[in-house]
């Protein structure tokens, strides 16, 4: 009867083949479920592949004093105490095992002379903690997981974009989308769905993120009724490339500072001495980003509005060995040899701490049968993520989400029914750009929304600006009704962009509404009009959810940290 879409059926459907999605799929398959893994680009190309610096786990290989307690404390402090401490505890305890497991699956890290996994220092980590392979740790992680996954009996569907989660009453019933290649519609029936869809850095123009980071998964979850949390927390990585314009935003890994790189302003001053005399260049990202921002504001910026980052004193050999892709990246793209001259860097949007609100141990969202792990999930990183904590997050919570989704799927008696009307409504939405004549260009609209975000929801925010920005986003949402695409449904980027833009606008709205609500400065959220931390806000997370077709903002209490764990946090401070 319904042959306008192709149907697939699995116990568990995993959306996203980054670190989180792959790890979840492996776990669900190992638990005995039929697993379909879906991603919108080719396998092995997900955003995770770009991760450079390393994966944080308290192995204590180079600093034996390190342990989960210290990692816990560092992470809580970095997140300014609005993290879900239960997640952080699980995370700090399980990360080492996840790293060793990667090694058992064929992953290779740099080694110490004693034959153990080498660890490097990173911002706001007390000890040397980041397991790494040169500056391509993400590639190692994704390739290892990918090879494990294809031999675990998982079915991979590449270049399929999901645009809507299907529900049977309250619970999840599957997902609907299209194949990029030919535009054919697909319905995946599933007992449980895991989101591993990553972040939405692409709502900003200057970002280190790849094109996939349009936040589809988060927006879909929201549309399916899930709660989103901490959406105001957008991480600006202090060191993105600045010049030439084409590469603006591309990441300069924190490992450059981990390996001894030093930040200086135009006058040659090591300005971090003023902002964080103790941790200096390896302070947490929010602090360093603000420092660079303030230096530029004070007229001490580099020629293209950033700071200088110098690693040349480490010598060509070390640089080429420990930071090969940085060396190549600057040589090829910016004509700069970093073994001789400093790089010019400025903050770039890098990571979103917020996302789908999940249960600490299981990754379950507020929608039954819908799970989330990785960057799309919120709670672990609080107001600011520490470098290297994302990759271990992907593994720890990817695995947990996979296991719990599998358990949930097995307990499901009756297969949820797919409601054809939901699919049909989505198809109508998807096809509308072909009908709208003379309407809006999705690429132009994307650029405009990026401009709004950069101007009104940047590093430094004020209530007034945020309110203005929200108005602009709402206006863009109106215009997005008129998006137009030419051509056919065969691999058509213009058409694909139409849906992406709508997802992004939803998330932009969530960022603005949450940022307006949080009337204090904390972590990545810096309000010039409320420059101080406010303990009442320190006890609350901001949550948005859809009700009656509108976005509602509310707060949830931050789970109170038990006394023994609080002591851990205080100790190191």
């Amino acid at each position, binding site marked *: 009867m319904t042959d306008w879409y192709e149907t697939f059926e699995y116990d568990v459907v995993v959306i996203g083949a980054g670190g989180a999605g792959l790890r979840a799929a492996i776990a669900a398959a190992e638990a005995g479920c039929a697993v379909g893994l879906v991603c919108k680009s080719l396998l092995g190309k997900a955003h995770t*592949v770009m991760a450079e610096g390393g994966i944080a786990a308290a192995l204590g290989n180079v600093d034996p004093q390190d342990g989960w307690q210290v990692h816990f404390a560092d992470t809580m402090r970095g997140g300014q105490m609005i993290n879900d401490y239960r997640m952080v505890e699980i995370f700090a305890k399980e990360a080492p095992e996840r790293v060793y497991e990667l090694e058992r699956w064929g992953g290779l890290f740099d080694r110490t002379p004693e034959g153990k996994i080498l660890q490097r220092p990173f911002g706001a980590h007390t000890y040397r903690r980041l397991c790494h392979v040169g500056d391509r740790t993400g590639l190692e992680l994704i390739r290892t997981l990918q090879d494990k996954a294809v031999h675990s009996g998982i079915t991979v569907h590449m270049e399929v974009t999901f645009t809507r989660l299907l529900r049977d009453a309250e619970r999840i019933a599957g997902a609907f989308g299209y194949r990029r290649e030919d535009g054919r519609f697909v319905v995946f029936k599933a007992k449980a769905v895991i989101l591993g869809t990553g972040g939405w850095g692409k709502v900003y123009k200057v970002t280190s993120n790849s094109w996939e980071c349009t936040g589809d998964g988060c927006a879909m979850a929201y549309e399916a009724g899930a709660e989103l949390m901490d959406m105001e927390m957008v991480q600006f990585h202090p060191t993105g490339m600045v010049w030439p314009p084409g590469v603006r935003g591309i990441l300069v890994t924190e490992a450059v500072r981990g390996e001894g790189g030093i930040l200086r302003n135009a006058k040659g001053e090591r300005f971090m001495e003023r902002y964080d005399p103790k941790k200096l260049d390896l302070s947490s990202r929010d602090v360093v980003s603000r420092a660079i921002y303030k230096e530029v504001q004070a007229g001490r910026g580099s020629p293209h509005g950033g700071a200088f980052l110098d690693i040349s004193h480490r010598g060509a050999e070390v640089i080429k060995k420990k930071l090969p892709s940085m060396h190549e990246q600057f040589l090829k*793209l*910016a004509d700069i040899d970093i073994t001789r001259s400093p790089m010019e860097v400025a903050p770039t949007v890098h990571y979103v701490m917020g996302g789908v609100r999940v249960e600490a141990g299981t990754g379950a969202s507020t929608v039954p049968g819908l799970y989330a792990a990785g960057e799309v999930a919120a709670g672990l990183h609080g107001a600011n993520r520490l470098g290297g904590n994302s990759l271990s997050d992907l593994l720890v919570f990817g695995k947990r989400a996979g296991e719990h989704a599998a358990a949930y799927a097995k307990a499901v008696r009756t297969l949820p029914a797919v409601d054809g009307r939901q699919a049909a409504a989505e198809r109508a939405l998807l096809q509308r750009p072909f009908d709208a004549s003379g309407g809006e260009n999705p690429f132009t609209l994307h650029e405009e929304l990026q401009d709004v975000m950069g101007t009104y929801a940047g590093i430094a925010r004020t209530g007034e600006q945020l309110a203005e920005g929200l108005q602009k986003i709402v206006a863009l949402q109106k215009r997005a009704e008129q998006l137009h695409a030419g051509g056919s449904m065969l691999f*058509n980027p213009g058409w694909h962009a139409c849906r992406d833009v709508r997802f992004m606008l939803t998330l932009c709205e969530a960022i603005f509404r949450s940022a307006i609500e949080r009337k204090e400065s904390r972590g990545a959220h810096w309000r010039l009009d409320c420059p101080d931390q406010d303990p009442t806000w320190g006890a609350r997370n901001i949550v948005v959810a859809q009700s009656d077709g509108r976005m509602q903002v509310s707060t949830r209490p931050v789970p109170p940290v038990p006394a023994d764990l609080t002591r851990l946090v205080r100790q190191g401070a």
Partner: protein
Amino acid sequence: MAEARFHVFRGYAKHGDLVTYQVPITEGMVVLDGIHYIQAHLDGTLACRWNCKAAKCGSCSAEVNGRPRLMCKTRVDEFGARPITVRPIKVFPLIKDLVTDVSWNYRVNQQIPPFTPDANDPGPWKMYPEDVERLYEFRKCIECFLCQDVCHVLREHEGMDRYMGPRFMVRIAALEMHPKDTRSRTDLLKGSGGIGFCNITKCCEEVCPEHIHITDNAIIPLKERMADDYFDPWRALLRLFGGKKEPRGT
């Protein structure tokens, strides 16, 4: 503003043509920027793959002025005033414009026996730098498949059902030389892997954006390992009489 002339292949496997676009040049611009400009301002239906725009994911492979390149790493100013011709990767079936069907590679990958450590050795492992250092090079591969495109066995001799191609020789090398792997894949190399079809003419090595010495460090050492097992009468004799195990470490 100065402009560059782009000739971009548009169309499908059986019909298509180069279409010319004028694209304004900005400083330090790469070919992928030009393609994006075309998508955003001239024709939104132009299909191409890309993800990272930082030469890390290997999605944006194409043939730029006749050479397999990553579009995001190929500077426009490299060509001076010459027009820039961008065509899809030739060895794989075309889907549309610059997008080709690379699924063959994923099927090949699946045929390679996975990493197999000793099940009784759960770790954490000791692996010394000297044991793993040569593997890092192979692990750098970003699967851009440029080497597959340029390899004449695949490109000119329709070798897809006989030879896995340089990319997968690199992958097999990484597995074979892993100190903790217990499996031998020389039978695969000699058989369906088809390493004998490679005549070590090194075109793959010339195009690899990760500068992997595909031929010298992966393929030739693998050929030698295969020779150990299949082309060495002396060793065969030793094995027959001495029962001498392969001296490969673990």
